[in-house]
C-alpha cells in the first residue's frame, strides 16, 4: 500500500468538519480508523457475532478462532516468543494497572523503590502511586535533560539497591523523545530489576520486537494504532504472567470453582476475566494487517519527514516555542505561543478544521518541570501530509493576528 495516498483509506477524511477539510493532528491522543477496521466491526456484528471461549455452537467456535487469530497476529507483530504472552485488556491503562497491581501483590514489599521518569503519562504513574499508598513503596523519577530526553545516565543515577521496577515510556507523548529501552533493560536486568514499558506511543510509530527490547512487560493502546477503542494489549514474559496472581476475578479466568477453593485458568485466560471486547479484538487484526501492508519502515520514514518538516516551519514562526529537542524523536511536536494560552490556540485552530490537543496531555509532572501550565501538541499518523503542517502554520498565524502578536 502506498503511503502517499493512504488518506483515502480513512473515511473520516471524506467528511467536512464545520465546513472544513479535516487536518487531523491529534493521533497521539487517538488515531483515525481505516475503512477495513470499521467494516470488520460491522461485519462481525452483522454476520458472525457470538461470545468467545464459552459455548460450543458454530458461531462461538468461529468467533473464538477469530479472536485467537488476532492474538497470533499481535504475537507476530511485536515478535513475542509465545502467543500466551499476549493478554487483551480494556486499554493500555488497564494493562499498566494489571502489572502494578499484581507486582504489588506478589513481588513488592515495603521500602522497595520504583523508578519512573518525568516524561511518564499519568497512566504510568497513578497505578504505581496506589502502591505508594497501600504498600509504602517509594517512587523516584529520572529527570529529563534540557532537550526533553531521558539520557541513560539519568536512569542509572536513580537506581538504588532497593529499585525493583523501572516503568518507563517508549516514546514521550509530549516531547516525542524515544527512550533507549534496550539499553535500559540491559542495565536493569543486570541488577534484577523488572522493566515495564508504556508503549502507547511507541507501538504505533516504532518497529516492535519485544524479544530484542527484552523488557518484561509492554503495554499497547489499540485505538492509537488505527484500531478500535476499548482495547489494549499487555505483553508480559511468560515467567511473569505465570508467576503473578490474577488481576480481576470472574467468568472465563477460572479452572475450577468450589465452595471452599478456586483454581485459576492457564494463560492467557487467567488475565481475561469476563466478556472481552470481542468485536474490537477481531477488528484489530485488520489494523495490524493495515500496518503490515504499508510496512513499519515506510511509516517511520514518512512520519520522520513530517516531523522534520513540521519542526522546520514552526521554528521559523517567531512566537512559537517548541518543547524539547530530542535527537531521537517521533510522532509529536508540542509547542507554546508566547501570550496565547494553548486552549485559545486549540479553539482558534479548530475553526479551520485543524484538530490538535491542548492541555497537559496527562503529563502534569513534566509540565510542572517545564514551568508551564499547558502546551499545544500536533501529533501525526500515517495519513498526515506536509500540507497539514502548512495549514497548521497558517492557522497559528491567524491565532497570532487575533491576539495581536507580531
Amino acid at each position, binding site marked *: 500500500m502506498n503511503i502517499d495516498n493512504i488518506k483515502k483509506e480513512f473515511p473520516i477524511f471524506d467528511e467536512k468538519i*464545520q465546513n472544513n477539510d479535516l487536518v487531523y493532528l491529534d493521533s497521539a491522543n487517538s488515531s483515525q480508523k481505516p475503512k477495513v477496521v470499521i467494516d470488520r466491526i460491522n461485519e462481525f456484528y452483522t454476520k458472525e457475532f457470538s461470545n468467545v471461549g464459552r459455548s460450543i455452537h458454530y458461531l462461538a467456535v468461529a468467533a473464538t478462532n477469530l479472536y485467537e487469530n488476532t492474538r497470533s497476529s499481535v504475537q507476530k507483530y511485536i515478535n513475542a516468543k509465545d502467543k500466551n504472552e499476549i493478554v487483551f485488556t480494556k486499554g493500555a491503562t488497564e494493562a499498566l494497572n494489571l502489572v502494578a497491581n499484581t507486582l504489588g501483590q506478589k513481588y513488592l514489599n515495603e521500602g522497595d523503590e520504583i523508578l519512573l521518569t518525568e516524561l511518564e503519562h499519568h497512566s504510568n504513574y497513578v497505578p504505581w502511586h496506589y502502591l505508594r499508598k497501600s504498600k509504602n513503596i517509594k517512587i523516584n523519577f529520572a529527570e529529563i535533560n534540557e532537550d526533553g530526553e531521558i539520557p541513560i545516565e539519568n536512569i542509572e543515577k536513580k537506581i538504588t539497591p532497593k529499585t525493583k521496577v523501572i516503568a518507563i515510556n517508549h516514546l514521550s507523548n509530549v516531547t516525542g523523545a524515544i527512550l533507549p529501552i534496550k539499553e535500559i533493560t540491559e542495565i536493569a536486568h543486570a541488577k534484577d530489576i523488572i522493566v515495564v514499558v508504556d508503549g502507547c506511543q511507541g507501538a504505533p510509530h516504532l518497529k516492535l520486537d519485544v524479544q530484542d527490547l527484552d523488557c518484561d512487560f509492554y503495554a499497547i493502546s489499540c485505538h492509537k494504532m488505527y484500531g478500535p477503542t476499548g482495547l489494549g494489549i499487555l505483553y508480559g514474559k511468560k515467567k511473569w504472567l505465570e508467576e503473578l496472581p490474577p488481576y480481576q476475578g470472574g467468568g472465563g479466568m477460572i479452572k475450577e470453582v468450589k465452595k471452599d477453593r478456586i483454581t485459576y485458568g492457564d494463560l492467557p485466560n487467567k488475565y481475561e476475566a469476563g466478556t472481552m471486547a470481542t468485536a474490537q479484538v477481531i477488528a484489530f487484526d485488520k489494523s495490524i494487517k493495515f500496518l503490515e501492508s504499508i510496512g513499519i519502515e515506510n511509516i517511520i520514514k514518512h512520519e520522520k519527514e513530517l516531523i522534520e518538516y513540521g519542526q522546520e516551519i514552526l521554528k521559523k514562526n517567531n512566537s512559537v516555542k517548541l518543547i524539547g529537542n530530542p535527537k531521537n524523536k517521533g510522532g509529536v511536536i508540542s509547542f507554546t505561543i508566547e501570550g496565547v494560552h494553548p486552549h*485559545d490556540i486549540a479553539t482558534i485552530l479548530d475553526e479551520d478544521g485543524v484538530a490538535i490537543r491542548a492541555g497537559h496531555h496527562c503529563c*502534569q509532572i513534566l509540565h510542572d518541570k517545564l514551568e508551564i501550565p*499547558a502546551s499545544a501538541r500536533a501529533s501525526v499518523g500515517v495519513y498526515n501530509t506536509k500540507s497539514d503542517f502548512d495549514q497548521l502554520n497558517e492557522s497559528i498565524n491567524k491565532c497570532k493576528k487575533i491576539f495581536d502578536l507580531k
Partner: protein
Amino acid sequence: MNLKELYQEIILEHGKNPRNLRKTENFNKDAKGNNPLCGDNVHVYLKLNNQRKVEDISFEGSGCAISMASASIMTDLIKGKSDNEAKEIIDDFLGMIKENPELKSTILEEDDKTKLMCLSGVKQYPMRVKCATLSWHTLISAMEDDGKQVSTED
C-alpha cells in the same frame, strides 16, 4: 460558530491585562479552583467587611484568555457590592451562560452588563464554558467559606 464573538476586544484586553490579579491584603475569605483537564487554576481572595460588603476582591492564577478575562471582569463588578448583591450577580451570570439569553439583574449598570455579555460567546463552545465559569464557582465557594476546592470535574 464565530471566533469574533468569542474573542471580543474586551475579552482580549482583559485577558492580556487582567484587573485585580493580585492577593488582597487581610483577606478573610478565599477559595481555590482548578480545571484538571487543562491545568487552569484560580485562587480568589475576598475581604468582606462588617456590613457584609465586598471591600476588596482579587485573584491569582493562570489560564486561557477566556478564564482570565472572566475572572478580571468578575472581580471588577463584584467589588463594592454587598454579599447578597454579589450572589445575585453570580446567579445571573451563571444563568446567562447556562441558558438565559440576557442578564436579568437590576443591580448592574448597562455598561457592566455589556461587559459580562461579552463572555456569552462561550455558549457556542461547550468545551470552553468551564473556562468562563471557573472563577465564578470559586467565588461562590469563597463566600460560602466551605473550604472546598472547586473543580470543574466534580
